[in-house]
């Protein structure tokens, strides 16, 4: 019997594809953001509200993942920007290969911002690097403020936390300061925005966050699962 030291990432193949994607995004100055949250936290609604304020000539594209249906792509397509639905057929997350395939028909030089809406799931998507510049995690105020402690992996890896549906705060027992403190416990560097797509609160700050990072003008902190792991591979 021989023991062979291997020392490689289990998701080596995904990591290889993610590195390739990241290199292509960088070459084309694309800001790629990977949106992750539980089902129903408002990823699609936030994307709709975001697209609504972009001018038609802006180069924005969306990939949206779900287990079944093309409903989200239909909702997002109404804003006139290129969108593709990735139907995973039961797989609980998006992986690098799915992104690679979906991008095939799109000339990357025509994209400045690529939004990836992951499958609604706080667990599995956190393990799969999609070549994004940052993961963004959404938490709605109708959920528990202890979610960052229950699902530390994604809050640990996200650069930005967007607290959604804040217009509902007067009606729910959600302690927003506790939620922020919990997120910072897991990830002290995490940035936090409060947004309501219903009233528009926080949308200006969110748009400013995006504008500051377009064309790689400012590095995105706290993207632990992108930079560090990528470096280790080579």
């Amino acid at each position, binding site marked *: *019997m*021989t023991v*062979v030291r*291997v020392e490689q*990432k289990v998701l080596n193949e995904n990591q290889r594809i993610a590195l390739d994607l990241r290199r292509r995004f960088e070459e084309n100055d694309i800001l790629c953001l990977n949106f992750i949250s539980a089902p129903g936290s408002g990823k699609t609604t936030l994307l709709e509200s975001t697209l609504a304020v972009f001018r038609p000539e802006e180069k924005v594209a969306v990939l949206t993942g779900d287990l079944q249906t093309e409903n989200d792509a239909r909702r997002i397509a109404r804003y006139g920007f290129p969108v593709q639905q990735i139907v995973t057929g039961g797989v609980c997350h998006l992986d690098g290969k799915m992104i690679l395939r979906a991008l095939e028909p799109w000339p990357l030089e025509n994209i400045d911002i690529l939004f990836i809406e992951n499958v609604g799931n706080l667990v599995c998507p956190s*393990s799969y690097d999609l070549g994004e510049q940052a993961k963004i995690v959404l938490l709605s105020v109708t959920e528990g403020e202890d979610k960052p402690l229950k699902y530390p992996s994604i809050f640990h890896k996200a650069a930005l936390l967007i607290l959604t549906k804040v217009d509902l705060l007067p009606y729910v027992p959600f302690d927003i300061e506790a939620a922020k403190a919990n997120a910072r416990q897991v990830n002290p560097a995490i940035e936090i925005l409060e947004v309501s797509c219903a009233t528009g609160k926080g949308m200006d700050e969110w748009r400013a966050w995006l504008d500051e990072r377009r064309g790689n003008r400012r590095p995105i902190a706290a993207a632990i699962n992108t930079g560090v792991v990528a470096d280790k591979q080579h």
Partner: protein
Amino acid sequence: MHEVGIASSILEAAHSETARRPGAKLIGIGVRIGVLSGVDIDALRFAFECITAETEDEKVVLTTEKCPRVNRCEDCGHEFSSSHLSPFTDAPCPRCHCERTKFVSGDQLDIAFVEVEEP
């Protein structure tokens, strides 16, 4: 939730490694799973059993090592682990009690070794 996919990736990588040694047969795999990896070890072991059942890999032994979160004190450099997931950064350095500590590891999802039988 995605442990079946992870188990398949582990098996696939172990077979690639084994294939580099002509005639070798895979009999064991060792993996390191960090508490922040998002992978549940029990679910992973169960998934591994399911995908190998009634295949040539049925007898492959999966060894799992659970890795704690490790922080380093920014003041004195002391590295310390905490097996619980929270609080993270609130945990002061046990040596100098400084509260500025930095994440070092805990998100591992690594294959450490494979065990093979060689002719």
